[in-house]
């Protein structure tokens, strides 16, 4: 039980880094099927953001205390101890009226402007792969105050022919949720959205913010990654922050909290097989 925590896993680092993007006193919503984000919200609520209005995806429970993390989001386990409940229309109304401070989105394709695709690979005429779809992500990418993008599949190892299928791509086949450029290339500022768009991308290789033009910029790497590694696994060129740093690792207390929140380590399902063994000395 109580042996001191000396290392943190990649998943725990990502959860911590996603949590750091969450301001106190706002309303933040995690969608469904996103254990890393669910844990990040519960971590934030229990550490630096005690006044966070935490709305759980699928159940729309407010400030619940899940007994443990389940692989399915719309489960009573996830709404145990909720302070109150919203419903689907109320949650989305809050976002549309500018009262959702932050939302978390991912995609099978992420472009330099933070546009995301979870709808399909290939074009309308020739559908290569049908993805599950974006839930309410499209609406919230416009309405939520800020967006934290995350993916645990940034790394794109080459296949036998040396080709890489990038997660961070130059262009999305379909824009499910919008970042800093519309599907037809207009800057976000020209669109009457409530929200300011994505400000962070937390991946398994590092952390991006966005420059003044709305383009992803590498902001931090991890103890076992470098700018070069990130570059060769990314389908577009990106600027690097002048003050590029190594991402801060969580304190032992934070790590213990994450482990208590996810006793079945459901969040590891988001990680690639190899990444499940990545650890960092504190």
């Amino acid at each position, binding site marked *: 039980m109580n042996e001191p925590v000396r290392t943190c896993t990649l998943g725990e680092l990502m959860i911590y880094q996603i949590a750091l993007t969450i301001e106190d006193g706002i309303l933040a919503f995690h969608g469904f099927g996103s254990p890393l984000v669910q844990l990040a919200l519960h971590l934030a609520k229990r550490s630096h953001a005690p006044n966070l209005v935490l709305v759980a995806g699928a159940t729309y429970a407010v400030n619940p205390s899940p007994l443990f993390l389940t692989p399915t989001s719309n489960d009573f*386990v996830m709404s145990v101890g909720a302070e109150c409940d919203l419903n689907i229309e109320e949650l989305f109304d809050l976002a*549309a009226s500018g009262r959702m401070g932050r939302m978390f989105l991912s995609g099978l394709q992420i472009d330099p402007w933070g546009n995301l695709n979870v709808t399909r690979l290939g074009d309308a005429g020739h559908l290569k792969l049908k993805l599950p779809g974006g839930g309410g992500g499209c609406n919230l990418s416009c309405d939520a105050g800020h967006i934290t993008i995350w993916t645990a599949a940034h790394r794109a190892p080459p296949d036998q022919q040396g080709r890489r299928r990038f997660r961070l791509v130059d262009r999305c086949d379909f824009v*499910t949720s919008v970042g800093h450029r519309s599907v037809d290339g207009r800057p976000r500022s020209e669109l009457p959205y409530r929200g300011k768009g994505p400000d962070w991308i937390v991946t398994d290789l590092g952390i991006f913010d966005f420059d003044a033009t709305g383009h992803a910029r590498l902001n931090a790497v991890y103890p076992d990654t470098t700018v070069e590694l990130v570059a060769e696994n990314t389908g577009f060129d990106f600027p690097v922050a002048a003050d590029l740093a190594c991402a801060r690792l969580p304190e032992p207390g934070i790590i213990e909290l994450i482990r208590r929140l996810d006793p079945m380590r459901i969040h590891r399902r988001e990680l690639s097989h190899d990444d499940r063994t990545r650890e960092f000395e504190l």
Partner: protein
Amino acid sequence: MFTQADKRCSLSELVAQVKDGDVVAVGGGLSWREPMAALRELIRHGRRGLTVVGSAHGIDIDMLCGAGVVAVSGESYVGFEQDFGMAPNYRRACESGAVQVRDNCCYTLVQQLRAAISGLPFMPIRSVQGTGFEALHPEFKTMICPYTGDRLVLVPPLQPDVAVLHAHFADRHGNLHIEGPPVADILFAKASRKVIVTVEEILEHEDLAEKGVTIPYFYVTAVCEVRYGAHPTSCYPNYAYDRRHTQHYYDQARQGAEVFRENYLKPFVSQCPDHRVYLEAIGGRERLNRLTTWRESDEQWRSLYE
């Protein structure tokens, strides 16, 4: 207005309200309170060409796709989250062209249902513009707001032909009580031409009223008592999600359309003349009792996911 005094009927009569080509809104969400028994009966009835609309779904829509019931999907998500990942039958049906892809987004769906509920020819929405959904939905229009000068997207009313719901309780008049997240069920009930409902139990009105009426009777066309009617999805507090059965479902579905038909649809749907036989097929009493043990302890609840 559905005002007849007694709306009870058989599952077969209930499902007969759905016609080939109907736009159908399936209640519940993901692994929670899907009207699975009604959907299995729908498959037995050989319905074809349905357009399904909804927010976040999983095994319900995937099973309908695997059975060839669906022609168009207007869902906003169909998958198994981090539990099993993508929905195999849904993917195949979309990629083969058997199912036309008309993905929607949750709030767009809400606004379209609200337009139907309040009899408006459209609802305005600020989002969606600038994304791929405008091209996917040529029926969406835009306008310049006369107050702000902003460009708004107008989405037309969505009035499903039938909403298919599973609730905890009903009375014979059709008043419904749902515990836990209603998801979009209340919106579906208000927006749809017909509302057909399976319930865990039909109560005397007084007992139902004490629990509270979630959906008033006059929206509801017909009700049928089908215990465990949401299995293998959950209907807390009555029973939890049957992850083991869903794992079995997924394993068959993943192996291809043929294997799914042979190893899942046959034994659990077409070869089960009714719900009672289905409950035997999935393991009967013993399996069902296990799903009610979630209350006993955190460990017991956890064990249902391992």
